[in-house]
C-alpha cells in the first residue's frame, strides 16, 4: 500500500502528560510523525493536536484507533479525504545584502509574505500558507542564503467547521 500524508486532528483534555502520551504512543508503535502542532481551542479545557502522519491506509487506521484509546484524547478525526484549509506558519531569516534587497522584496510580495525584522545583513520574513507554498518560498530564498527556519507545523480545519465542544460530544 502506498504511503501518503494524512492529516489527523485530535481534541484532547488539557491534562498533564497528554502530549507525552501521544508522542510516546507514536514512537512505541513506530508510526511516523511528519509534523505535530498543539494549541488551545475556544474551550479552555480542550486543546487540538494536528498531526500529519506518513502512512498507508491501514496504518493510519491503527493510528486513529490507538489515539482513540488514550483516555484524555476526546475525539479523533482523520481529515485525509476532507476538503481542508491547511496552514503552516514560518519565520525565516534570509541573508540580504543591500544590493539584493529589492530582489528579495519582490519575492516577498509575490508570496504575500511579510518582513517582520530587518538587520544589516538579513531580513526575517513571516510566511503562512499551505505546505507547498512554504517550501517553494524556502527554495526561492536558498540562492541568497537561508540562515534559520522555524515552522509551526500544519494546522488544519475542514471547510465546514464545528466547535470542539460539539465534536467532543460525538464518539471518538
Amino acid at each position, binding site marked *: 500500500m502506498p504511503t501518503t500524508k494524512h492529516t489527523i486532528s485530535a481534541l484532547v483534555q488539557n491534562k498533564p502528560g497528554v502530549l507525552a502520551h501521544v508522542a*510516546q504512543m507514536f514512537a512505541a508503535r513506530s508510526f511516523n510523525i511528519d509534523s505535530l502542532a498543539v494549541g488551545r481551542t475556544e474551550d479552555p479545557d480542550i486543546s487540538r493536536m494536528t498531526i500529519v502522519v506518513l502512512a498507508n491506509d*491501514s496504518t493510519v487506521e491503527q493510528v486513529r484507533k490507538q489515539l482513540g484509546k488514550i483516555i484524555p484524547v476526546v475525539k479523533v478525526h482523520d481529515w485525509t479525504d476532507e476538503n481542508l484549509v491547511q496552514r503552516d506558519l514560518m519565520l525565516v531569516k534570509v541573508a540580504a545584502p543591500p544590493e539584493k534587497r529589492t530582489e528579495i522584496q519582490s519575492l516577498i510580495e509575490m508570496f504575500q509574505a511579510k518582513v517582520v525584522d530587518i538587520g544589516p545583513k538579513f531580513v526575517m520574513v513571516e510566511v503562512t500558507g499551505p505546505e507547498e507554498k512554504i517550501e517553494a518560498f524556502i527554495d526561492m530564498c536558498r540562492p541568497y542564503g537561508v540562515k534559520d527556519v522555524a515552522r509551526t507545523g500544519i494546522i488544519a480545519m475542514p471547510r465546514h467547521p464545528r466547535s470542539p465542544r460539539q465534536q467532543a460530544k460525538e464518539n471518538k
Partner: protein
Amino acid sequence: MSDKSLSTPPKAGGKSGKPKEASKPEMTGSEIFCQTLISEGVETMFGYPGGVVLPVFDALYDSPINFILSRHEQGATHMADAYARATGKVGVVLVTSGPGATNTVTGIATAYMDSTPMVVITGQVKTPLIGNDAFQEADTTGITRPITKHNCIVKNVKDLERSLREAFFIARTGRPGPVLIDLPLDVSIAKTNLNGSEQQMDLPGYRVRPLGHLRQIKRAAEAINAAERPVIYAGGGVILSDAAQELTALVNKANVPITTTLLGLGGFDENDPKSLHMLGMHGTAYANFAVQECDVLVAIGARFDDRITGDVKRFAPNAKVIHIDIDPASISKNVKVDIPVVGDAKNILTELVNFVEHRDRPGWFERIEGWKQKYPLVYDNNTEGIKPQYVIEEVSRQTKGQALITTGVGQHQMWAAQFYRFSRPRHFITSGGLGTMGFGFPAAIGAQIAMPDEVVVNFDGDSSFSMTLNELPTAVEHKLPVKVCVLNNGYMGMVRQWQELFYGKRYSKSFLQHPSFAKVAEAFGAVGLTATKKVEVPEIVERMLKEKQCCVVDFHVEREENVWPMVASGSGLHEMAGLPTESIERL
C-alpha cells in the same frame, strides 16, 4: 447509537445531588483512600510499604482490607494479577515510590499485555519536591505510561476520590487493563471533606460500547450458517467477558469446531469432541490444519497474535474472517477482517446464538477427526526417567482436570497447555503476551488467596521458579496449600530447544546450577519433595495433593525433551515440525 445510555460513565459515588460539603467530616487523603477502596468492593490487596506511603499504611492498620505483604513488589503485582484473573475482580497493589514503583513494572506490563484489570497505587515524593531528583523519586507515570491503560498523578486531595473511582472504572470496563495512580506524600496527609464522592467522573474521552451492532451480528450469523468448513477461534476475551457459557451455547447450536488460544483455555470444555484444543506455534496439528483450511473463521476475544498466525500472509488463506472484540484497535490490526463486530463478547454471543442455525457438516467433522487420529498430541513415555508431559498428565488425572493451574514461561508452560485438560474458565493463569518468567509462583499465591477452596497447582520451570521463589515465605505465612511442580530439566528448556534447532546445539548460557529445590522449600518452612524416577510420580503427586501447606516437588525430568509440534517463525501455520509418526504410540 442505541447504547449511548450505557456508554456514559456513571456518577462517582452512586448517589446524585448537590455537594454537601459542610455536613461531611474532614478526612485525610489516606483515609479517603481506604474508604474509597472499601466502597469499590476491595477485600484483598497486595503490596509493600516504604517512606512516602506510611500514612496510607497507617490508615490501613485499622481497615478491614486484607493486606497481603509480598517479599518483592514484582511478586505483589503478579499476585494481584492472578487474583483478578481468578475472580474477575480488580486486583489492587500498593507500593512506595522510586524502587517500589519500578519493581512493579514487570508485573504491570504482564497485566497490560494480557488485559488484566488492576489498580496500582504508587507513593510519590511530596509535590514541591517533584522534579528535583528527590530521595526515592522516579517519574512513575512517565515510566509506566506505555504499559498502563491509563495513569495519573493526583496533586490535589480533592481529586483523590474521583481519580481512584475513575481508575477502578477504567480498569474493569471495556478491554480491561492496569491503571496506575501516583500519590504524593503531602496529598495523602492533606485533609478535605470527601466531596469527591459527589463529583462526576471526568472522562469525556472514555467510552465503552458493550453492545454489538445488530446488523453486524446478523451478517456474522449468515456467514456462519452458510459456511461449510467453519472454525471458532476463541481467546482471552471470552474469559475476561465471562462468556464461556454463551460460547458453549453457540458452538453447540451452530455445531462448529472450536480452538482456543493459550489465554482462552477453559473458555470451552476441552473434553468435548468439538474442541480442537490450542492452536498456534505449539498448538495441535488438527487445530492448525483446521484454521488453514476453514472457509469461515470466527475470532472471539482474540487478537491474532503472531504466535497464532505464523506467517501472517499465509494465515487462513481461504477464510472469511469474523472478529468479535471489544477493542476496535484489535480489529484488522494484523489480519484483515471481513465482518467486524465491536462489543462485549458475552452480549454479542447472547444475540448471535439466536440467529445461527444447526448444520451437520459431516465432511468437515470427518476431515478433522482424521487429523485428530493421525496427529494426536503424543510423547514417548517409554523411559525410566520422568517425562515432563507425564507429570502434567498425572496431575490432570488425579485432579480430574479441576485444579486451578498457573505456570512460569517456557517449555513447561506449553506442556501444561497441551496436556492438562481444561474444562472451566479462570482455571488456567499464565503470562501469554509478555511471557514473564517468574509469574507462576506468585500467581499461584494470588489465585489461592482468591480461591481458598480450589486446588492450585503451579507448573514451573527450574529457571522460572528461581526468579520468584523468594515468595515462599509469603505462601508459608498465609498457610496457603499452593502446590509447585518444578519440571526441573536443569536448562532454560525453551531457550535450549531453540539453540538445538536453530543454533547448532551451541547451548550458550542456557543452563543454571540449581540448589535442591526441596531443601530450599524446607528452609522457608514449606514441604519439599524430590522425584527422580517415573515410577515415583503417581505416589508423589498424590502426596503433594494431600498436603495442607505449601508444597514444592522437584521433578528431575528428562533434560532434553522438546515441545512439539512447532511452527518455526516465518513458517505457515500448517508447516509444523515434529508431527508424530506412526511409530510413536500413545502410551
